[in-house]
C-alpha cells in the first residue's frame, strides 16, 4: 500500500500493535533539558527504575542558562534546576552538554549540528519545538514530563495514529523573503488550530529549495499551528548537510543509510487526509501584530480591524490582542516602534540566520534607544560565527553578542522585556508575557529583525538607506 513519509517512519518503529489501543512506538533519540526533566527523573527514582537506553538519550542546558557569561547563574532557583539536571544525568548515566561545553546550546540546535538528528528516526523531547528535527525527515514531536519519564523508563511511547496532511508550497520565494516569512504566512492562513491532529509534510518546489536551516525554521513552527509534527522528505540537501557530522554514519554505513533514507519519500500515489497549498511567489516579509502566531500580516499592510474577522471568537481574540499590544486598527505595521530586537532561538538562531542579520547590519548601526541582542543557538554556532567575524559586525553595529541559550525566546533567564516594552523577535511565540511580563512581541525573520534594529520601527532590509562603505 502507498504510504507517506511519516507513515513509513511510523511503521518502522511499531513495537506493538493491538486493536483499540495506541501503537507502542520505539524512540530512537530522546533529548533532555533542565526544565521538563527533573520531575521525570524523580518519578524513576521513586519507582526504582533505571534509564533503559542511556545510549539513546542526551541532555543539554539551555532554557535557564545565562547568556552574558558562562560561569555564574545568578538566580538561585535557576541554578538549582541546572544542578538537578547535572546530578540526574550523573546518577542515571546520561550524557550531558553543560554550560561551557563546546556542544552546549538550545536542544533543537545542538542535536542536528552534531548529526544526532537523522532521517527516518523517531525523536522526542520534553519541548514542543521538537518538531524542528522533522526537517530531516525524522518523526519528531514534543512530549510532556510524564512522557519523558515513560521514554526514560521504556524507550517507547504509546501513540495514537495521527492524520496525515500535505502542505505544498509552490512557486519560488521572492528575494528577501525567507523560510520564517513562509511559515508565519502559513500559520496566519490556517490558524493556530489548523494543523491539530495532523502530522504535516511540507513539500513542493519552494520547500525543496530551502537550506536545512530554512527547513528547520519551517518544521520548528509546526506546533504553532497545532500540528503534532512537521516533516520534510530527506534529499541531497539533507545528505550533504549531514555527511561528516560527528554522529552521522561513516563509510559503508553511510552508503547504507543514504540508500535507506532515499526509500522514505512519500509514495507518488499516497493519500493525505488533508491538503493545503501556498504560493511562495506571492509572499512578502511577514510579521505578527497579535498575541498568537496566527495573528500575522504582511509587513506592507496595517494592523487589522478586529471587526473584520469572521467569527466572534476571532474578533474577541483580536480585540484583546490589540489592547495588550497597544496597537490601533489601521496603523501601518511599518510605523510600529520597537525597544528591543532579539535574534536567536531554535527557530532562527543558527549560523545562516546570524549571517543574514549580520549582512543587514554591516556598515549600519542599531537605532538610538533600541537594544539588540544576538544570541547564538549553540556554543558551536557562536564559535563558527566568530570564525567568520560576524560578532565584530554585531558589536560594531551596537548589538550585544551573547552566549548560547534560549534567552529572550521565553525569558526564563535574566534576558527579558520589561512591562510595556516591545520587541521584534526571531523566536516563535508572541504570547502575552512570553518574553517577560507585560512585554509585547512581534515575530519576524532575521532580516526583518536586523532592519528593524537599524530603523527602530518594523522594517525590511529593502527599506534601508545604502550602508556606509
Amino acid at each position: 500500500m502507498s504510504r507517506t513519509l511519516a507513515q513509513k517512519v511510523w511503521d518502522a518503529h511499531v513495537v506493538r500493535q493491538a486493536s483499540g489501543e495506541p501503537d507502542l512506538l520505539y524512540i530512537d533519540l530522546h533529548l533532555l533539558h533542565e526544565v521538563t526533566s527533573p520531575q521525570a527523573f524523580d518519578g524513576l527514582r521513586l519507582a526504582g527504575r533505571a534509564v533503559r537506553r542511556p545510549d539513546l538519550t542526551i541532555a543539554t542546558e539551555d532554557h535557564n542558562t545565562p547568556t552574558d557569561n558562562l560561569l555564574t547563574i545568578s538566580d538561585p532557583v535557576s541554578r538549582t534546576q541546572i544542578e538537578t539536571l547535572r546530578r540526574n544525568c550523573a546518577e542515571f548515566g546520561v550524557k550531558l552538554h553543560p554550560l561551557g561545553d563546546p556542544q552546549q546550546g538550545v536542544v533543537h540546535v545542538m542535536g542536528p549540528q552534531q548529526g544526532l538528528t537523522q532521517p527516518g528516526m523517531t525523536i522526542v523531547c520534553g519541548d514542543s519545538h521538537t518538531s524542528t528535527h522533522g526537517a530531516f525527515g525524522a518523526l519528531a514531536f514534543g512530549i510532556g514530563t510524564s512522557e519523558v519519564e515513560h521514554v526514560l523508563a521504556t524507550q517507547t511511547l504509546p501513540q495514537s495514529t495521527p492524520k496525515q496532511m500535505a502542505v505544498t508550497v509552490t512557486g519560488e520565494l521572492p528575494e528577501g523573503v525567507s523560510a520564517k516569512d513562509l511559515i508565519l504566512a502559513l500559520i496566519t492562513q490556517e490558524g493556530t488550530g489548523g494543523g491539530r491532529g495532523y502530522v504535516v509534510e511540507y513539500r513542493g518546489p519552494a520547500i525543496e529549495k530551502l537550506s536545512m536551516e530554512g527547513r528547520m525554521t519551517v518544521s520548528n513552527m509546526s506546533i504553532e499551528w497545532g500540528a503534532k509534527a512537521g516533516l520534510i522528505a530527506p534529499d541531497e540537501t539533507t545528505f550533504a548537510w549531514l555527511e561528516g557530522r560527528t554522529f552521522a554514519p561513516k563509510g559503508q554505513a553511510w552508503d547504507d543509510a543514504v540508500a535507506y533514507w532515499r526509500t522514505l519519500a512519500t509514495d507518488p500515489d499516497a493519500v493525505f487526509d488533508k491538503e493545503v497549498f501556498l504560493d511562495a511567489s506571492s509572499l512578502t516579509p511577514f510579521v505578527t501584530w497579535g498575541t498568537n502566531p496566527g495573528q500575522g500580516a504582511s509587513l506592507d499592510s496595517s494592523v487589522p480591524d478586529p471587526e473584520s474577522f469572521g467569527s466572534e471568537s476571532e474578533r474577541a481574540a483580536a480585540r484583546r490582542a490589540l489592547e495588550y499590544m497597544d496597537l490601533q486598527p489601521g496603523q501601518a505595521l511599518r510605523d510600529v516602534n520597537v525597544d528591543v530586537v532579539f535574534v536567536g532561538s531554535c527557530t532562527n538562531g543558527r549560523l545562516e540566520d546570524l549571517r543574514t542579520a549580520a549582512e543587514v547590519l554591516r556598515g549600519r548601526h542599531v537605532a538610538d534607544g533600541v537594544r539588540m541582542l544576538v544570541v547564538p543557538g549553540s556554543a558551536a554556532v557562536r564559535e563558527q560565527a566568530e570564525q567568520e567575524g560576524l560578532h565584530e559586525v554585531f558589536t560594531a553595529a551596537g548589538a550585544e553578542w551573547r552566549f548560547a541559550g534560549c534567552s529572550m525566546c521565553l525569558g526564563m533567564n535574566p534576558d527579558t522585556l520589561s512591562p510595556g516594552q516591545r520587541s521584534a523577535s526571531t523566536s516563535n511565540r508572541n504570547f502575552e508575557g512570553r518574553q517577560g511580563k507585560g512585554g509585547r512581541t512581534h515575530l519576524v525573520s532575521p532580516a526583518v529583525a536586523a532592519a528593524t534594529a537599524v530603523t527602530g520601527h518594523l522594517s525590511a532590509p529593502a527599506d534601508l538607506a545604502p550602508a556606509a562603505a
Partner: protein
Amino acid sequence: MEKFTVHTGTAVPLRRSNVDTDQIIPAVYLKRVTRTGFEDGLFSAWREDPSFVLNNPVYTGASILVAGPEFGTGSSREHAVWALNDYGFRVVISPRYGDIFRGNSLKQGLLTVELPQEAVEALWALVEADPAVQIEVDLEAREVRAGGHSWAFALDDFSRWRLLEGLDDIGLTLRHEDAIAEFETRRPSFGVLVG
C-alpha cells in the same frame, strides 16, 4: 493516578480563546524541580487583575473550568496541568485543545472534555446566571449534564479506560517489555548511539 468516574462540581467561565500554556503558567514557575505546589502559578499574570474571573469570589471552590477554543496550545510544559490540578480543577471543558496539553492532562487524571462551541456558550450562560449551578461530568457515560441539558462528548476507549481505572502508563507499557527487547534486536544498525 486517581480514578475518575463521575465528577460533580461548580464551574468557572473563562471566556477566552487561545489560552496558551504560557498563560496557564508563565515560565518563571517552571524553574522548580518539584511536582506539586504550582497553584500559585496558575494564570498568575491574569490573576493580578482584580476583575479576572478567577478572582471573583462567587467562583471560589469551582472544580470545572469552561474555556474557549484552542485551550492549552503552545509549550509542552506539563506544569500547566499540574497547576490546574493543584488549584483544584478536575475537569476542563473547551471546544479544542493543544495536542500535547491534552495528552498531558489525560495522563494526570485531569479530564479534558471537548464540547462544541454552542455547548460551551450554553455552559457559560448557565454558570454566569447561577455560579452555584452543579455540573455533572460523567466519564462512564461520556456526558456532561447541567441545568437540565446534557451534552455527549467523545473520548477514545483506551484513554477512558485508563482514567476510569486510574492506570499508570509506564506500568502498562512494562507489561510488554519482551516486545520492546525483541524490537531492539531488529532496529536498523546505523542508528545513533550517543554513549
